[in-house]
């Protein structure tokens, strides 16, 4: 991962330090909480973790987790993979950061599920929180994945006619697509704003034993992130405006991937 900096430049070092710092704080508090399970009677478990009121250590834990996640996302977005387009502008960078966060969260989901299966199946002590936690995390993974797919221009499209058009018609088609997408975003926000707002202000919960505020957080997040996607779409159109028409073969073919597989097979 020691390749050139994409956008952080000289900030790379400090961000890395911040990431390590936040991870260290999170890890230490985590160890302390685990230890607490054996020492204290009123130990802080997953139930208390999402109810920080009156528990300063939980607040610190939550903020340091958030800090670790954001710092890691920023740090990791500073180097791009072979399959990725170079970011071009503020919103591209933002999409890259959120994509890194989503990638970390995907791995976290796997770990949460593994923990749940082991504790349910081997120790017969199913958790109350694992399913809901993965649901909560996955909602963000999906939304960020959509934003990332937009930045990477990897959408399911039918290029048969598009590729035959002259460049000015392609531009016109792109503008129409963009306007219609903005129309959808506008209508979505128009129709969903009041609902999302009340749920956010109430921090509406899921109505289960662990009772995380999934509707209260995910509903507003949907509106926010889809607006970000729409902005990303505008930014894409501006960035691609003067580019030459590309020929689209099958978009899934990915030379780097094939090269990687080839190397694996030759080992």
């Amino acid at each position, binding site marked *: *991962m020691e390749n050139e900096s994409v956008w952080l430049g000289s900030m790379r070092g400090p961000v890395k330090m911040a990431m390590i710092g936040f991870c260290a704080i999170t890890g230490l508090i985590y160890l302390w909480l685990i230890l607490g399970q054996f020492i204290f009677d009123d130990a802080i478990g997953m139930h208390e973790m999402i109810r920080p009121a009156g528990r300063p250590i939980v607040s610190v834990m939550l903020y340091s987790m958030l800090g670790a996640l954001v710092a890691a996302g920023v740090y990791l977005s500073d180097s791009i*993979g072979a*399959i*990725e387009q170079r970011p071009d502008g503020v919103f591209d960078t933002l999409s890259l950061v959120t*994509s890194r966060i989503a*990638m970390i969260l*995907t*791995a976290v989901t*796997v770990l949460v*599920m*593994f923990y749940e*299966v082991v504790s349910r*199946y081997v120790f017969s002590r199913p958790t109350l929180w694992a399913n809901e936690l993965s*649901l909560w995390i*996955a*909602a963000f*993974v*999906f939304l960020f*994945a*959509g*934003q*990332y*797919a937009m930045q*990477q221009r*990897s*959408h*399911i*499209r*039918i*290029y048969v*006619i*598009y590729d035959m058009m002259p460049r000015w018609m*392609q531009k016109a*088609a*792109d503008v129409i*697509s963009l306007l*219609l*997408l903005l*129309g*959808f975003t506008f*209508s*979505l926000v*128009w*129709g969903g*704003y*009041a*609902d999302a*707002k009340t749920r956010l202000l109430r921090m509406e919960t899921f109505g289960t034993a662990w009772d995380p505020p999934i509707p209260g957080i995910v*509903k507003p997040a*949907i509106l926010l992130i889809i607006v970000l996607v729409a902005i990303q779409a505008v930014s894409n159109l501006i960035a691609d405006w003067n580019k030459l028409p590309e020929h689209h*073969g*099958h978009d*899934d*073919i990915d030379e780097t*991937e*094939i090269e*990687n*597989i080839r190397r*694996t*097979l030759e080992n």
Partner: protein
Amino acid sequence: MEFLELFAWMKVSDVATLSIVLLLGMFALLAIGMPLGFASAFLAVAVLVMKFGPELLYGNFGKGPLSVLGQAVYRQMTNYVLISVPLFIFMASLLERSGIARDMYSSLNRWLSGVRGGIAIVTSVMAVIMAAMSGIIGGEVVLLGLIALPQMLRLGYNQNLAIGTICASGSLGTMIPPSIVLIFYGLVTETSIKALFTASFLPGFMLASFFILYIIIRTNLNPSMAPLPEVDPSEPQGREKFLRFVGFVSRFTLWITGALLIRAVFFTITGDNKVVEGVDPIALGMVSDIPYIIGAGVVAAVLIQFVVGRERTAEGWEMGKGLIAPTIVIGVVLGSIYMGITGITEAAGMGVVAVFTIGLIRREMTFDIVWDSLMRTLKSTGTIIWVTIGAAALAAAYTLAGGPTYVANMIVASELPTMGVILVMMVIFLIMGMFMDWVGIVLLIMPVFLPIVLKLPVEEIGFLGGLEPKHVAIWFGVVFCMNMQVSFLSPPFGPAAFYLKSVAPPQISLTAIFRGFLPFIALQLLALSVLLIYPPIVTMFL
């Protein structure tokens, strides 16, 4: 809001006009190259405008029928089963980067190299095993193309046979559980995914066996299509080889029974497997199972000791080692689902853990590989998720406008013969499959087609043998999946051809690849017609 009254003409009173505008709009937007997800999302808005009129929708900020859009998206975002999609993709991309496939190929090849058409058969068998591990095509065709194609061409196999075998078998991933197509079908139609997996097992194997039979028959009728490799004198032949295979299987059985025994004993000690009424027994983990497990182990031990002999067993173990890792992965994923340990989503998570662990043991996993796999996962997830969001919004809006009921009533009232309606649907699937990705078809077409199928008289479905009413949705899902098998191969955009083209030697043209597909497409259509003529083949294990 006088401004909005200017647009009052947008309101359309009857569903028929609305449906036609929707259909034409979809064609127009897709033609200008608008991403499928956004086109459907916008059309969802358009449908609502036509149904309720702009005044009702935009008269009041923050309220009104437009809120169904947000609701539909929220429902998809918090759908537990949908989480299995990124996890299966993650698992498949980790699998691609491990050497598991290569080792499996060399093991299978050593067992079957003496058979006429051996490498083609190995390719098919390997494709089935890989299909049972993950269920994402693309990577599978690329892997098989890189491993098996050069070898078949070097041995002088018929080029068309080689190409067809690789792509047709490589597409089996969607037919054999776990299959991502069936997951989406289950999500859209609210059918039990586990039942869909069970139901697709037999048709999937039937199709695979069609391929293998075709290879055997063709190559035996015309041996020049598949020349045999030169015999390696150091390799055991004939009966000796078979004995080594028995040795391998016995030794593997011994390991499995050992593990199961430890598990059953563990449960007995912890008291988890007490027979409690109303609680499902733990599969192969009850006290009453222990004698059977021990029995199987003893049989295996006797085979090793007295029939095969220890030396041959050790050789067989060396030859077959490559099959162990895939078996474990399949055992973890399908075993979790079918032994009632976890649901689909957690099984996918366990699959990731299993592949990762095996990769660690094989010393292949690095941070870069995991990170790269995560990147690919996120990209594919994002691509699929937009179609899901858009289609969910459109389906919600169209249902609110009464569309699916209207179409279903129209079809049922027209008194077409039942199988005629189904055949027309098959033709529509096949044609759409030529141009569109399966995700789009399942998400956009299924909400309209399945209600029609469910309204058709159930006793008229199929020619031999009937279906129970509760199994119709499952049957139709498997039939749909079989249609999508064809769509992977059908010209002009069959994805399998493009995957293979990207790894094939340059002198093999796209036309040549599609020509190689023809007999295999015929086999797929044959399998499809079996499902239509004899529906009970789907519900046999339900």
